[in-house]
Each structure stands twice: as structure tokens, then as C-alpha cells.
């Protein structure tokens, strides 16, 4: 059952081949059997099975949609009513969310079952899942290696087939990079496409939730449910949601694929380069045209991001103060002491580092040199994309500069870790949709992702381009078990 696509699972449920309770039980057992991967922070079997039983009733009544009865894993950044929502932090280790995030609400309304909450870098700050309070997640392809981050638990869960599909969030590459490291299809939608309500904020102007799946077809189904206007999110866009599965098969004849020269320069790892170019040749065979484009400011995306994201984060994380919920230090002398100890103990090192960088960038005397400067560079980066899309329909390149690295390899060097997101960050800065899909394996048998970047609100095109590739290749069908 764990090899089936979402549509196959829906058919199986519809034909009574198996019930939602059986399916859920099956995946819960797989999660239990693969505990070493540490993909989940919280699994609540009883609640999951209860939801599955409800779904079975809906299925029996013929009152069901494509996701009814299908168990899904959710990143532990989404608030789930009555279930611990930790965001990978000791700060929220005891936090039972009192409400559902809009994304969770939508999946529940669609009748899907919550299988559990997946592990993640603390407050989504990391590219290897090593900053989680709950420990590292193992990459199912090589358990000595990281799954990527910050949505590392979701990536590992889907790659190890502990869940048919999962949700993730992406602030600078947190869906696409782990998708690349784990051989998955991951989509970061356009900013404003998916509601951020109930998704614990890291950097509000960059965060977007999206699906992490085994195929573009599955991603289309997931995105269909996640997307849409939400009046509780002032940055959510009131734009109709198209049928994302409708255009999957569209012919690619005449499609113009932009190759940013800056992504293919001599710095790019040769193996990654050849796999990426190999994938682009496939597109040429399908009638697409490759055009060279330039994103001249893309090398500034990492510096720009490491001002803006920490600045927003430093403010977003001020609410974790030990007053209304979450962790509070055991002993303190006075209010100031309570604040300082609570936050020093409740947050991990990477989070504290980013809070301090952000605080500094916003502080008196430095605002113009850092924060304002970064906002201006953000404009330059965004304008680069606007110009590039005059010449092409989608942009393609590598997702990450390398494949999954070993544990501890970059933990002592934050800057090296940050550079892992060099190809993904600019997409968040511009608010565009981006996708990673498996395009090959490197010499160590580790998955390599191809990144596709689309025009604003053009997720349909990305899914179409990804799906056509998956019709002629089988990289997405490989799993750690069968390869």
C-alpha cells in the first residue's frame, strides 16, 4: 500500500479494497517500525484512528473527495487543535494547540486523517534538521546523512513511505531542499496562495506552506486542498484556485525554459551540473526550448535573506516569553531574569543566533545599513525575475549545491550551512512558486533535485512541466527500499 499514489489510494478506498482505518493503521505501523528515522515528533494513534473511522463513514455514505480517508503527515509548525504543536522547540514542548491552522482545517474538511506531526528544524531555522529539540532525522537513503531542512521530518516520512504525502513550509528552501535530498517532489507555492494562519511564523514575508509528495500528480492534489483565500491572513490573496490537475498533461512543445547563467557557473558541483543539464535535455526532447537568462543579483540573495529573515524572526519570536504558554524557566529572581532565562533555555543555539542577528539588524544605527539595504536588494532580485520571465515561461536549475551531507558536517559553520540555500532563497524573496523534483542520483546513490521556478500564481505550469518529466523518467518512483 505504501507504494501507491494518492489517486490509487483514493480508488482503493472507493472500491472498498481497504478502509481508511486499515490504511491508517498500516502507516502507523510503518511509523512505529521506522522509529529510528525520527521523522515524527508526535503521533497520536487513537486520534488518527478515530479520524479514519469518521472518514470511513463519509466514504460509505458516498460523501467523499479525493483525500477522504487518506492519512497525511503534517509538519509540526502547523497548529493542530488538541495535539502538541512544538515547532521543533523546547519552548513549545508542552504546547497543546487550542486551534487548527487553516491548512489543517482544510485537510480535515477534505476528510483526510492526521497521521502525526513531523520533525523539523527548530522554528524552521535550519537546512539539515539538526537544530530540532527532538533530535536529528535520518535520511532514509543513507542514515548517516541529513534529510535536509527545515521540513526534514516530512521529507523523510514520505521518502521512507511512512506517509503517502506530507505538508511542509518553505521560507528559504525548506520544502525544496529536503525534497531534493530525499528524492521527492516538493512545491513552494506563490506567496499568498496558501494561508499562513496557524502556521507558526518564522519570517512572515517569506513563509509559505506547500506539499511534499512522491509525484507532481500527488502535489497537484495536495495543493488543491491547501490553496485559497483566507480572511484570517491579510497577506492571503483573493484569487480563484484553478484545477491544478487539469493541465498536468499539457504538451510542452514550444515551452521556453530559462537557464540562469549564474546558477550554472563554475562553482556548481560537476555531478549536480551534469544531472541538471541531463534533465534539461529531456525537456528539449519533449519540444521545449532552452534559453539562457540572467539573474544578476542572485548572488546577493543569501546575504539579503540573512538580514530580512532573522529581522522578522527576532520580532515574531518575541511572543515566546514564558507568560501565556510554553516553556518558563524553573527559577528566576525577577521579571527580566524570567524572560532571559526562559528564552535562553527554551530556544536552541541556531534560533538564538538568528534572533540576535535580526535584533542587531533592526537596532538603532544599523537599520539603514542592514534592514533597509536588504529590502532594496530584495527589490533588485525580484526585478531580475520579472525581466527574466520576459524571455521564458519557467526557469530551471539545481535545487541545492550538493546532495545530502553527513551529520555534523556543517553544524559548526553556520555560513556554510546557509549557503546550502543559495539557489532557493531568491524565489522566496520574490514571492514566486518554486518546485523541486527528483532528476537523478549522484555517484553515492543520493537523490539530486531539479528546481523549477514559475511566474507568480502559475503553479499549474510548474506542475505540468514536472509531471511531463515524470511521465518519461522514473526517478520519482525510486525509494530507498527498492533502489
Amino acid at each position, binding site marked *: 500500500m505504501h507504494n501507491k499514489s494518492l489517486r490509487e489510494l483514493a480508488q482503493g478506498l472507493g472500491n472498498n479494497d481497504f478502509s481508511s482505518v486499515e490504511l491508517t493503521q498500516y502507516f502507523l505501523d510503518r511509523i512505529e517500525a521506522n522509529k529510528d528515522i525520527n521523522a515524527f515528533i508526535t503521533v497520536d494513534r487513537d486520534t488518527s484512528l478515530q479520524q479514519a473511522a469518521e472518514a470511513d463513514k463519509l466514504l460509505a455514505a458516498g460523501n467523499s473527495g479525493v483525500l477522504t480517508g487518506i492519512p497525511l503527515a503534517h509538519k509540526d509548525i*502547523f*497548529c493542530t487543535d488538541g495535539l502538541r*504543536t512544538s*515547532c521543533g522547540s523546547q519552548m*513549545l514542548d508542552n*504546547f497543546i*494547540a*487550542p*486551534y487548527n*491552522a487553516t491548512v489543517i482545517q482544510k485537510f480535515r474538511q477534505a476528510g483526510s486523517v492526521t497521521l502525526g506531526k513531523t520533525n523539523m528544524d527548530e522554528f524552521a531555522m535550519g537546512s539539515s534538521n539538526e537544530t530540532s529539540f527532538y533530535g536529528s532525522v535520518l535520511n532514509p537513503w543513507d542514515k548517516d546523512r541529513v534529510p535536509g531542512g527545515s521540513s526534514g521530518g516530512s521529507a523523510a516520512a514520505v521518502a521512507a513511505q511512512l506517509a503517502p504525502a506530507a505538508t511542509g513550509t518553505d521560507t528559504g528552501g525548506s520544502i525544496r531542499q529536503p525534497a531534493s535530498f530525499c528524492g521527492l517532489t516538493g512545491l513552494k507555492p506563490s506567496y499568498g496562495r496558501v494561508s*499562513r*494562519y*496557524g*502556521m*507558526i*511564523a518564522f*519570517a*512572515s*514575508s517569506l513563509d509559505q506552506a506547500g506539499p511534499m509528495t512522491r509525484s507532481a500528480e500527488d502535489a497537484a492534489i495536495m495543493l488543491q486542498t491547501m490553496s485559497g483565500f483566507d*480572511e*484570517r*491572513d*491579510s*497577506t492571503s490573496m483573493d484569487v480563484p484556485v484553478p484545477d491544478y490537475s487539469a493541465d498536468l498533461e499539457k504538451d510542452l512543445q514550444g515551452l521556453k525554459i530559462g537557464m540562469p547563467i549564474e546558477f550554472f557557473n563554475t562553482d556548481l558541483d560537476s555531478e549536480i551540473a551534469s544531472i541538471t543539464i541531463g534533465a534539461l535535455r529531456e525537456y528539449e526532447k519533449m519540444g521545449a526550448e532552452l534559453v539562457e537568462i540572467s539573474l544578476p543579483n542572485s548572488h546577493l540573495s543569501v546575504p539579503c535573506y540573512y538580514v530580512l529573515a532573522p*529581522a*522578522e524572526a*527576532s*520580532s515574531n*519570536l*518575541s*511572543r*515566546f*516569553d514564558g*507568560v*501565556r*504558554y510554553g516553556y518558563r524557566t524553573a527559577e528566576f529572581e525577577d*521579571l527580566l531574569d524570567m*524572560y532571559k532565562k526562559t528564552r535562553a533555555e527554551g530556544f536552541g543555539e541556531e534560533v538564538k543566533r538568528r534572533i540576535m542577528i535580526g*535584533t542587531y539588524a*533592526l*537596532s*538603532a544605527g544599523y*537599520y539603514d545599513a542592514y*534592514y533597509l539595504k536588504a529590502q532594496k536588494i530584495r527589490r533588485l532580485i525580484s526585478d531580475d525575475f520579472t525581466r527574466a520571465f520576459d524571455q521564458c515561461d519557467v526557469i530551471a536549475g539545481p535545487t541545492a549545491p550538493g546532495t545530502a551531507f553527513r551529520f555534523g558536517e556543517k553544524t559548526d559553520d553556520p555560513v556554510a550551512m546557509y549557503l546550502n540555500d543559495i539557489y532557493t532563497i531568491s524565489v522566496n524573496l520574490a514571492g514566486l512558486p518554486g518546485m523541486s523534483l527528483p532528476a537523478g542520483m549522484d555517484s553515492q546513490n543520493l537523490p539530486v533535485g531539479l528546481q523549477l521556478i514559475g511566474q507568480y500564481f502559475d503553479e499549474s505550469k510548474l506542475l505540468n512541466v514536472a509531471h511531463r518529466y515524470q511521465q518519461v523518467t522514473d526517478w520519482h518512483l525510486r525509494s530507498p527500499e527498492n533502489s
Partner: protein
Amino acid sequence: MEWETVIGLEIHTQLKTRSKIFSGAATAYGAEANTQACAVDLALPGVLPVMNRDAARMAVKFGLAIGARINQISIFDRKNYFYPDLPKGYQISQLELPIVGKGSITIDVNGKKKVIGVTRAHLEEDAGKSLHEDFHGMTGIDLNRAGTPLIEIVSEPDMRSAAEAVAYLKSIHSLVRYLDICDGNMQEGSFRCDANVSVRPKDQEEFGTRAELKNINSFRFVEKAIEIEVERQIDILESGGRVVQETRLYDSEKNQTRSMRSKEEANDYRYFPDPDLPQMVLEDSFIEEIRAELPELPGARCERFITEYGLSDYDAQALTASRDLADYYEQAVAILPTQPKLISNWVNGELAAGLNRDNTSITESPVTAAMLGQLVTRIDDNTISGKIAKEVFEAIWNGEGNADEIIEKRGLKQISDDSAIEPVIDEILANNTNQVEQYKAGNTKLLGFFVGQVMKATQGKANPKQVNQLLSKKLDK
């Protein structure tokens, strides 16, 4: 040396919306602690703000009323600081692009008019409250007030005395109630004020170092706190010292200000545009709609009362000090349009005294505008005298009915029939022959004595004008 005081005020005005500025929780005052603090107000992880349209509408209304520039694009910023009554660890406010720009308001101090500049007015959210009763050495936090919409109205340093500051505060207070955007309740904290106070040598252009006075939440305290602070600063300067820039708290019991050093340290608020809230763009139509709804403002209404009703400057100002009072007056005048001056005397006299005595507001007055109109009409048509009217007024106040009912019930109708008054006069003249002789000898002042006697004999019911005429006729015969 002669010193000049320089004062600027920051007024926090709670807007009269039903729900909070960024959430759908209620804003009603006095609810049980934390029962009106929703997920957004508590800053639970993941929640987001959504702006209340009426808060923007009310801010624009204020801006239009002070002739200010309305910024059609304005930005919400985060002001970052840690405090237990500030759940998010930042306050959503407006720094660089506030909704209301420069405007002004005219004040009147002892008949002298002066224009005070308003630098800006921006939208922001209120904080919760810290309750300092002892919970085993802990402080309790109530977040019901957190997220209540405010406009902070910042004046130019245009005021030169405590009296001017109070006049300005009163003008703004009256204006926001006229506009129906704030209930103006200072006890409940709906209308709060901080004052920036400095002194400088009379001819010096440059400002002195200022202190910011907090906790001055009544008109009386504003005046006293400023006066005492000015004294303190002059004392320091005259003894060769220097004033320190700081926040000072006014202690009304001791009538002194004291330094709040705790507020001083490290106030680096790290303002930046709130990424959860795109820029607020107000269409022309939105603003024009509000302009069309704008009520007549206190200044204009006062002028109109002077010209249209022939009132004195003093009376007109008293009547237009609050919109409810002015409305009351005009409702009464509508009943008897020929006597605006007489009605003004009643409203500013008996009615004001009654409200003051019973500590009640014009909207809760037991004598309604219609009742007062009827009462004055009965004076005007000679049914009762002014003196009897006071008795009737008291009876209406005490809930005994309207003027006509009371006049009827108590038999207070004025005697205007010559044939009823003449026998009374004849009797009095007959009983006071001495005085009649003195009068006839030229002491005409005694007419008052006779009138008094007649009024006494008729329990004040005789028409005084008629009594005068009849007496003159009989005595001058």
C-alpha cells in the same frame, strides 16, 4: 530671569469600535479578566492580524475634523519591546507613514483664541493591564484591553501654559466625542494623556530639555502636574542645575512628579514595517464618504449659535462644549424658536446645576429637551411666571410628570385675569394706607413693595406684569 513654558501633548484616544483593531474580540469595558482576549490578542503561535475598517474610518474622521492631511497610503510598523501586558512582544503602530498628518485645532483661553498644531495622529493597538494586587508576590495580567484600537494624537510644542494645555486637551476631548469616535471616559482610560514639558528663558528660541509626564488622566491633574513640573524645572535651572530628559510619573496624592528610571533603559524599539500587514490604501471615495458624514464641529456650531440664536460668546461656548448638550439645546429651541436666549439661560442655569448636583450626564437628564421646551413655552405664553417655573422644573426633575401636568396638578396656573387680581390689589391698598400715602407723596420705589405683597397673596401665581400695570393704574389715579 523670566521663564517660558513649552508643552506638547500626546493623547491616546480609544476608538469606539465594537471589536478590536486586529481581531474579532469585543472591546466592551469592564468584562471579567481575559474573557475578551482571543487567540490573536493573546498572540498564540501562528495567529495573524486583520485590520478593522471602522478603526480606519474613525481615524480619518478625526483627521478631517482637524483639517489634516489624510495619508492615503499608510504603513503599520512593529514597535518591539518586552512587557507582560504586550503579548506579541511588539505593538503594532505607525511610525513613518501615519494615517493622519499635520492638522490643527483652535483653543480658547479666557476669550483669547489660539491655534495649536497637531503633528500627526496614528493608529495603534492598546496593551493589556498589569494588576498589582498581590498574588503571592506575583503580578496578574489581564489582556482584555490588548488590541483595543487607539489613535495617538501628537501635538506640536505649541502650548505655553498649563491652562493652554488643559484647553487643548478639552478641545480634543470635546471633538472626539462630537465625532462619536471615543467615549471620552478618562476614569476608564478611554482618553489618556502624556505631556512633554520644558522651560526656556523668555527670549531663547531653542527648546529646553523636556520631561515626559505620565499618568495625568484628568483635566485637573494635567494642570497640576504641569505646574508642579514647571516649578521643579525652574528651581533646578535657577540653582544652576540641568534638567535631565526622562519620563516622570505624576503622583496626585503628593502632588509631585518622580522619575521613572525603569522606563528609560534601552528603549531601542527596532521599528520595522509589519510583514503581516500590507500597506493600507484609502480610496478617495472612502475618505469622501466620511467627509460627507462629518457632523458640525464645536467651533462652527459655536459661531452659528452666536449668529443664529443671538447668544453671547460665553453661553454659546458652554452649550457647544459637548455635542449632546448642543443637541439638547437645539431640540428645545425647535419647540420654541422665538426664545433661544431664554432656553439658553435655562440649559446653562437650572439644568446644568441639576446635572452637576446629581452628577449625571445630559443624555441621562430626567428633564428631557422636550420637557424643557414645554416648560419654557409656558413661561412664554404667560401660563406661569419664571419663578413658578423653577418650582415646576424641580417637580419634573423629580419625576412628577411634564410641565403641563404639574401646573395642572398643583394649580400653579398664573392669574392673568384682571377681575381676579383687582380685588387682591384693592385689599392690599386698603390694608397699607401709610405706604399708599408715601407713594403718592413721591416715593414711587414702593411700587415694588406692593407688587411683592400681591405676589405673596397669590402664592406667586399672579402675572407680575399685569400686577404692575394694575397697581400703577390704581396708585397713579
